[in-house]
Each structure stands twice: as C-alpha cells, then as structure tokens.
C-alpha cells in the first residue's frame, strides 16, 4: 500500500460546500440518504421474496411441524403471502412510511419490540470495537513507523497477521484465555462494561490490522513532508513531531476506512454476538435470514443502512476538523 503523498492528502470528503448555500447541501444530502434507505430495503425485499422456497414451514415451528391446511391458509393471509409480490412490496413500503415495520413471522410480536432493545447493545459493541481498533492501530504505528528496518518490518508483519485473523477464532481464543482460564471477564452475556470488552476486542483486532496498514503508509508519507523537516529543525522532539504534526495527516485515510468499518462492524457483530451470547442486530439478521423472517430482516437492513449514512456524515464533519484544507472557511489550501 503505497500511495503518493498527494493522493493520500487530497482524500477529500464526498461533499464540499464550495458553492451554493448550506441549505442546498443539506437537502441534497437528505435526498441521497432517503434514496440509499429506499434502495437497501427494496433490493433486500425482492431478493428475499424472489428466492425460491416457502417461508411457511419456518413460520410454523421449523421443519418438523405438520400444520393443518386451515392454519397454513391463515398464516398466508395474515402476512399477505397470498398477494402478488408487487402488492406485498407496496403495502410494506406504505407501512414503512408511517413507521410500521410489521410483525415478526417467528416471534409474532411487532418487529421494533424485538430489535429495538438490540440496537444499543450492537452499537455499543461496534463503537467500543472501533475505539479499541484505533487505539491498537495508533499505538502500533506511532511506535514502529520510521524506527528502522527491524521495527518497521516487524510492525508490518504483525499488521498483516492481525488483519488476516478470523474474528471467530480471536473471539474463542479470548474467551478461553481471559474468561474461562483466568476468569478476568464474564464468559458471556450482556451486563455492563466488563462483558463488552472481549467481544469488542474480537472484532477490533482484525480491524486494527487494516487501520494500521492504511495509517502506516500515510504516516510514512507525512513524515517525509517538508513541514515535518521544518518542525524538526525548530528543535521539536521526535514524539512531538509525530503526535502533533504527522498524526493529523496520517489518520485521514483511516477515518474514511472507519466509516466503512462501523457499517461492517454492525453486520459482522454477529460473530461476537453468537460467541459471547449477546443479544444484537447481527444475530437477529442471521437468524431472520435463515428463518425467512422478512420483516425483521428488512428492519435490520434499514437500521444498518441508516448507521452507514450517519457515520458518513460524522466522518465528513471530522474531516473538516482534522484537515482544514477541505473547509472553505478554514485556512486556504
């Protein structure tokens, strides 16, 4: 991963308020966000509905129940499965507009009652995983970049190793060592911060490998910049140069990566959620897909899409803070 310095430093956000009013930008953004939500839900709906197979058995107690024809007919009518797909789609969309996500096929209760309580645990998990990943990645790059061939090479090797670890394996290993053997953390569950540490770490370690790889190359570029040389010439210590000058530039690509990472953390949270027996959106999504529980699947997809949109927004704002050149009112580029 070696990008030229210019590339990595001009990784500008997707919208810049150079022309037009802020209002226009906001309107554009809102329209774009709505489109993304609509597209995500629509695509998921048709993929699930047009996949062969009948959800009825899943709804009626797994593959081993033997319901009466009346029961099956009642279920089809109840969930509108006897309607043409297009009609089902339009009625789903209509309900969505008034905030009605429907009723779970499997749990028989309103979708939001099932996944509402799971949003926070998953966001906590994803959030803490991101924090851990950044801490690990930054500690790593600050300590090893430009410190000579041995440290550099060693750092690179560890990053690749981290990035290639399966979350599943990391999770099981953490559980075995720190929970079962040493007893420092609960083995599973969802009670407070201590039960969050191991699941967050299992998602954070591979992600830290990715972030560190990206950060390392931009860090190297930054250290080669003239302003670093002048800072050193002014007699700043090496650490000060790294932390106050180079770091700012180095984390920009990592920020972009984080926007993607949060979205993927929410959906890949399933691994940590299953291993550590935590309730959460990831588990809901996997179970719902397997059981053909369409309303839950669509709602989780909707939430993940919304998280993506929000995180991208936050990253854009952070960009302006970290890199004043992208801010029209900031210092001139």
């Amino acid at each position: 991963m070696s990008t030229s310095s210019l590339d990595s430093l001009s990784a500008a956000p997707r919208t810049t308020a150079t022309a037009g009013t802020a209002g226009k930008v906001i309107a554009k953004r809102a329209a774009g966000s709505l489109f993304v939500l609509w597209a995500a839900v629509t695509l998921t709906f048709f993929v699930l509905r047009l996949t062969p197979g009948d959800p009825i058995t899943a709804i009626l107690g797994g593959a081993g129940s033997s319901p009466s024809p009346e029961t099956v007919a009642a279920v089809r009518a109840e969930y509108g499965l006897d309607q043409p797909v297009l009609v089902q789609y339009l009625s789903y969309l209509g309900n969505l507009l008034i905030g009605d996500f429907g009723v779970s096929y499997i749990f028989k209760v309103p979708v939001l009652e099932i996944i509402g309580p799971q949003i926070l645990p998953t966001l906590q998990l994803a959030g803490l995983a991101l924090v851990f990943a950044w801490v690990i990645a930054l500690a790593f790059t600050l300590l090893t970049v430009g410190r000579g061939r041995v440290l550099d090479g060693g750092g690179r090797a560890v990053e690749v190793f981290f990035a290639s670890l399966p979350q599943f394996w990391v999770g099981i290993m953490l559980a075995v060592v720190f929970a079962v053997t040493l007893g420092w953390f609960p083995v599973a569950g969802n009670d407070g911060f201590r039960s969050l540490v191991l699941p967050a770490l299992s998602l954070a370690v591979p992600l830290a490998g990715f972030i560190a790889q990206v950060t390392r190359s931009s860090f190297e570029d930054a250290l080669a910049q003239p302003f670093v040389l002048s800072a050193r010439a002014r007699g700043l210590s090496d650490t000060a140069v790294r932390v106050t000058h180079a770091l700012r530039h180095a984390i920009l690509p990592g920020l972009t990566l984080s926007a993607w990472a949060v979205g993927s953390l929410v959906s890949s949270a399933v691994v940590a959620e299953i291993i550590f027996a935590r309730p959460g959106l990831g588990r809901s999504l996997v179970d719902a897909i397997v059981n053909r529980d369409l309303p839950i699947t669509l709602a989780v997809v909707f939430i993940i899409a919304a998280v993506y949109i929000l995180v991208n927004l936050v990253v854009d704002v952070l960009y302006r803070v970290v890199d004043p050149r992208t801010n029209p009112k900031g210092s001139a580029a």
Partner: protein
Amino acid sequence: MRTASPSTPRPSRTLALLAVAAGLVLTTSGCGGSAAASEDDTFVFATGKDISCLDPHVNGDMPQASIAANYLDSLVSQDSEGAIHPWLATDWSVSEDGLTYTFTVRDDVWFTDGTKLTAEAVKANLDHMVDPDTQSGTAGGYLKPYVGTEVVDETTAVVTLNRPYAAFLEVLAQPFLGIESPEALKRPQAENCNAPVGTGPYKIVDYVPQSRVSLVRNEDYNSAPPYAQHEGPAHIEKIEWRIVPEDSTRYGLLRAGQVDALDLMPSVHFDEAEADPNVELILQDRPGNPTNLILNTTRAPFDDVDVRKAFLRSAYVDAGINSVYFGTVTRAGGPLSSTTGFYSPDFEHVYDPDPDEAARLLDAAGWTERDDEGYRVKDGERLTVHFPYTPGAWPTAHQALVTQIQATAKKAGFEVLIENGDGATVSELGNNFAYDLRADYWNTNTADVLRIVFSSEYTESAGFVPNGSGFRNPELDGILNDALATDDPAEREDLYYQAQQIVSDNALQLPLYNQASQVALRSDRYANLTLEPSLSLPYLYDVTAVDSE
C-alpha cells in the same frame, strides 16, 4: 415433533470446525467458580437454541417445549414406560367408539394469574391449539382429529374427536399441549408470547428474546405430576434460562461457574465432562422416529425396493457415528427409537452394511454397468441420488456423517449429490418430492409417529410433508389406524410390531442415531435435575442446592 437442529447458523463451516478445535484447548482440569450455589438462589440454565414465542401452542419447536415443561402442567402425565397417569385431570373415560373423551379436572388448582382451573380451561386450550390464527404447527398438528369440547360443569369436559385416536392421551402429556390460563389466552398473541400463564411450578417474569427468560417460583404450587420426587413449591426460588447458541461458550460458562447447567452438551467436550467430578451428565434418548435419511419412493431410482435395500446396505453408519460423534449418541437401526412405547429391537440389524449384498441387489435391479468413475449405470443413466440439505439446520457432526455416507455409498456405485440450500428452499423441494434423500427425525412420545412418518395420510400437507418416503400402503395404513382404535396394550403392541415390520421390509429409511437430551449439571452445587418422561426435556422442579461446607 421434529426440531431444527441445535446448531446455530455460523459464518461458515470452517469457522465451526475452528471453534471445535479451539474448544479442545479448554482441557485444563477441573471447574472454576465457587462451589457454593449463587447467593440469591438463582439457578442459571444455558440453552443452546433460540426460543421464538414462549407459548408452546404457537409454532412448536423444541426450545419452546423445553421451557414450557417448567411453567406449564398438562392434563395427563406419562411415565418412563409410556403409561398414562392423572395430572390436572384426575380421571377420564373413553367412549366405546373411541370418539368421546370425558375428563374430570382438579378443583383445587389456580393459574399464576389467579384464574381458577376449571373444565373451561380444557376447552379454551384445545380450541386455541387448533385455531388457525394461533399458527400452531405441532400441537395443532397432533390435534387433527379434534372436533370440539363441551363443558358439562365446573370440573367436567367432554372432548369429541372425528376418529378413534388412542395416541390422544399420549400427545396430551407433552409440554407442547400444556394447559394455559384461559384469561391469559384472551390477550393479543404478542402479549401471550412474551408471558404465557400456567399452573406450573414456576412462572415467567421477563423475556428478552435472544438473551434470557427469567422465572420465579410459584409459591402456591400444588399440582406436581406423579413422576416428580416431591410435592408443593419447587426448592429453588429463581431460574434464569439463558440463550447461549455457541457450543464452546456454553461449555465454558459451565466450567467457569457462570451457569449451573446446560443442554445440547457439545460432544467434543464429553470426555472432559465425564472426568470432571464437579459435572454430572444427564443423558436420555428421546422417543420417536430416530435421526434418519428418508428415501423418496415416488421416483427413480428409489422407486425400486432393491435399490433402496442396496443403499441401506452400502452405508457404514456405525463407523461414521463413532468417528464424528465420539460415541456420544446411540445407533438406531429401526423406525422407532428404543425409548418409544411398543418399540421392538428386532429391526435394529436388518440392514447392517454388506457390500456384496448391495452389489447383488444392484445387479438384480438392472444397474449392472459401471462408468469410468465407478458409478453404476443403467440404460446409459448414472445411479444418481439427489440430497437437498441445509447444513445450518444440523450439528456439525451430522454434516460430517452425511459426507461419510456419501463416500461409502460411492463404493457401492451410488453418486450421492449433497445439494446445499437454505431451509425454505430445501423444505419446498421436500414438500414436492423433488429429492431422493431427505434428512429427518420426529420427536414424539408415541408409536403413532409411524403413522405420521409413513402413512398415506401424511404424504400431503399444506405445510411440511412428514412422510418423506411418499410410501402409500393400504395395509400399513389399516394397521396404524387399527392401533388407534384400541386401547388394549397387547393389541396395540402386536399392531405396532406389524407396522415396524412393514416399514423395515420396504427399506424406507436409513436410520442413523437416536435423538437425545444431553444435559450437564454442576453437581458440586445442585442435584436432582431430571428429564421429564414425555419428551426427555430438562425438568427443574426437583432440583436441590447442594450444601457447601
């Protein structure tokens, strides 16, 4: 009832194997955690499979029955021999034609919402199970002969059926058909799914889907079944029923002392658990039709009985089971598991592996050629067996087992194509007989399971088609219906023997192993965790804390 498997969907099979490998790391000696039971007298039970709706009348999957066995009582009870005894019903009489059952219910029992148990509850519950809006696949499925209930007085209910159904009392003993408060049943389904109400030893106080169910002791409990070891309220005050889908984690929790018991004991940890003085394993095969591969007799190649027999003869099931289950399940050879009433051991070894016999049978059936890959050929057609399969719905070991069967069948000249798909896809193929092999089992507490799995009546269904063999045999149908029309045990035994004989002679299934309840208990803290007799489900009513020094 056939449950979906204990294994949760996993990111991939490789990862599942990794988990097993990692689980093997857990082999330090002894259990952690304090030996004393937790201070606030809460018994923590870790279950391996998600529960959907807590009301077992709805849907009807095994995890629902498992928790229902601890908060619902049933009208009648069953002992480990299969005999029926009173429970909420003190006695009953059956009309001469087998169509009318008159139940007398106890008049000193209350539901935990304060409603008194009356004959009205019999009507409300049976009506609820057969109501299409309840969406009952299991309880409703067992009540197909049900016509209605007449409440004669406060304690007398008369149930009418449209055909003789001697298995009626047996299915009534299952927690799937547990008796709920008629008042509670009147609430919207969503509400009743979260907090159903029974007369049982515990009552539900809270349910967080995917996470836990909290139960608290019913202090007024006075309706223990005959198979219980004591009467009155339970010994343990609170139960936390935690949902922990990952095998290694569930076992890790037990070792670390963070749970007191678990179900779906992972086979990979059996040796370790057996060697651990702090862990007691409670194992019991379940009644019903064992785990099997059922052969579709409605199309070639398995429309030919010789080809079916050849397939059965080609499969080295024992070797497969020993290598992938480490001896933690028991082999089944006949159509009934050994814990089912009227089971006969005579059919266990009818189709033991015999490559020479398999070859002879295939020759006799005209599959005389072999192509260059070694598969048998007839009229230019390869001997191909289509096997749609949902890996996510089965334990990892089962996946390994079917792969081994595929390999041994190849030696005999069968090309078994395991075609992976999701549950809905596979069940649709299954309901249209668009397969040659189907993976199945059916847990129920009566030999009447033979009718569900092999009779003409069950070759069609609006939902799931239980008779995956498509076998339609008037003689067998007659025998199975006659067995429902008598309650003379000797006569039923004879009829069910004939039925097992016909099923075995026709080579309709390759039986693999018995479904089993496999529970582990921290015996340094608690004792007397038993399995209720109807479906071998964990029963916590008699559990006592072990005094710690």
